[in-house]
């Protein structure tokens, strides 16, 4: 049993480390109108170098997007960052291993890698000098590009300035195939990022807590639970009585109990860790498409390898209906096999991300009302309004953290239940 947990955790950690996350800062919309207007005057590539880019203007959208995005270093307090290991691979250049502290907060370039708003980017240009280089900074430009459909869309480009010359930066490769603004670029990021670090922490916490609970069950066999065991027993009973037993059925539920429990507690711990506003929490783990994709893929695989004959028959050739309806129904049923885990993925991601965005926006009210510290009365007003609403939202998010873990578990259980359900033949007629 322990082995199975360990397998699921390691596998999910590995897959998530492949940087599937779609919310890298490249998709955040820096509202840099000065760079845009500059571009409209027909300047050539990377003309943003040398411009004074460090405006003190508070930009709510890019601040919020930066906070829910993944990062290659863990920002703790003001200038204090926890360094995290970078594991990077670029075809032709090979592997690079170093700690993110070697970037000196983005003032150094290492072998063509640059820290851009907390994420590692790479200079694809081969003329960029290798080794440690002092850089002047990273600048941003929004440009109109033609997308696949031939329509003009605004896209963000980042450039690193070295000796006054701009070099274009590539964000890490993502597996979204360009749907979310990512795609394959010149390098792959396998780093232990902020999210991966927080996920490892959640896994360690789970292992510690549940080995204590296991010891409790061994010690108190046949007796009343004690200590941390008695705190968790209602959760176990809840998962059994409300999720697996009614959804999967008496005959099969014990087989899937470990998987559903793992899903429930892993999502719950990650959600709760994400709600802690300071180190080591604050990472938006389950609000990351890579993580929820991994969880949904597990649900998809386990549902379908356990599907019995009846399950597949109901997908490909639904019994008891006229033949011409079957030709309409079969494509829908086949699509629904994929849509179900896709909905699981989107639901968890969107719920948790939305919660984080709302809380960060409410905190941002302090800066918006205070007009960058010029309006002290506004700061107080924003602090009181934003603070109270943040406290309120945090309580709602606490509910959502439980609810989303429960919904993920119960929906997975119902899909598994549909896959293992045994139909009696007399029932097949209606």
């Amino acid at each position, binding site marked *: 049993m322990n082995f199975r947990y360990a397998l699921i955790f390691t596998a999910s950690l590995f897959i998530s480390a492949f940087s599937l996350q779609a919310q890298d800062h490249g998709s955040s919309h820096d509202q840099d109108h000065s760079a845009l207007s500059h571009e409209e005057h027909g300047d050539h590539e990377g003309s943003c170098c040398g411009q004074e880019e460090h405006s003190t203007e508070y930009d709510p959208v890019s601040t919020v997007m930066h906070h829910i995005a993944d990062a290659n270093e863990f920002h703790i307090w003001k200038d204090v960052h926890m360094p995290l290991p970078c594991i990077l691979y670029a075809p032709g250049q090979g592997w690079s291993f170093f700690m993110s502290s070697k970037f000196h907060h983005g003032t150094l370039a290492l072998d063509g890698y640059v820290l851009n708003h907390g994420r590692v980017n790479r200079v694809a240009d081969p003329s960029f000098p290798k080794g440690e280089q002092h850089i002047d900074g990273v600048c941003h430009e929004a440009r109109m590009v033609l997308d696949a459909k031939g329509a003009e*869309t605004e896209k963000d480009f980042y450039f690193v300035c070295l000796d006054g010359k701009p070099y274009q930066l590539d964000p890490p490769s993502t597996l979204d195939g360009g*749907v*979310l603004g990512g795609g394959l670029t010149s390098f792959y990021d396998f780093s232990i990022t902020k999210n991966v670090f927080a996920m490892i922490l959640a896994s360690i916490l789970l292992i510690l807590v549940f080995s204590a609970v296991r010891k409790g069950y061994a010690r108190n066999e046949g007796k009343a639970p004690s200590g941390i065991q008695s705190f968790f027993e209602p959760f176990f009973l809840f998962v059994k009585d*409300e999720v697996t037993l*009614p959804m999967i059925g008496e005959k099969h539920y014990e087989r899937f109990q470990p998987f559903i429990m793992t899903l429930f507690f892993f999502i719950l711990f990650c959600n709760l860790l994400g709600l802690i506003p300071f180190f080591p929490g604050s990472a938006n783990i389950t609000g990351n498409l890579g993580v929820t994709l991994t969880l949904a893929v597990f649900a998809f695989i386990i549902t379908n390898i356990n599907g019995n004959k009846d399950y597949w028959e109901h997908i490909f050739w639904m019994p008891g209906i006229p033949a011409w309806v079957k030709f309409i129904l079969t494509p829908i049923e086949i699509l629904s096999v994929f849509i179900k885990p896709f*909905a699981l993925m*989107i*639901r968890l991601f*969107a*719920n948790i991300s939305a919660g984080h965005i709302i809380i960060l926006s409410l905190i941002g009210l302090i800066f918006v009302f205070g007009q960058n510290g010029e309006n002290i009365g506004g700061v107080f007003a924003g602090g009181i309004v934003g603070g109270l609403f943040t406290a309120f939202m945090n309580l709602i998010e606490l509910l959502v953290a439980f*609810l989303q873990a*429960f*919904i993920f578990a*119960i*929906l997975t259980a*119902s899909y598994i239940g549909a896959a293992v359900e045994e139909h009696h033949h007399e029932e097949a007629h209606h």
Partner: protein
Amino acid sequence: MGAIGAGIAALGAGLGVGLIGSRAMEAIARQPEAVSLIQRNMILTAALVEGAALFGIVVGMLAK
């Protein structure tokens, strides 16, 4: 445009979840002994409605 679409999606989900909630309340008032069963199915159905709304919101955001 995307933001308008996201708003309409949220509107639809609000109607859906509201209907589910009101019917569940009626059902609980009629049969208080079935409260846990009704609650479970209410949350499940609400999650499905919300899933459809989130599709709308995510697609709306992508479309810009």
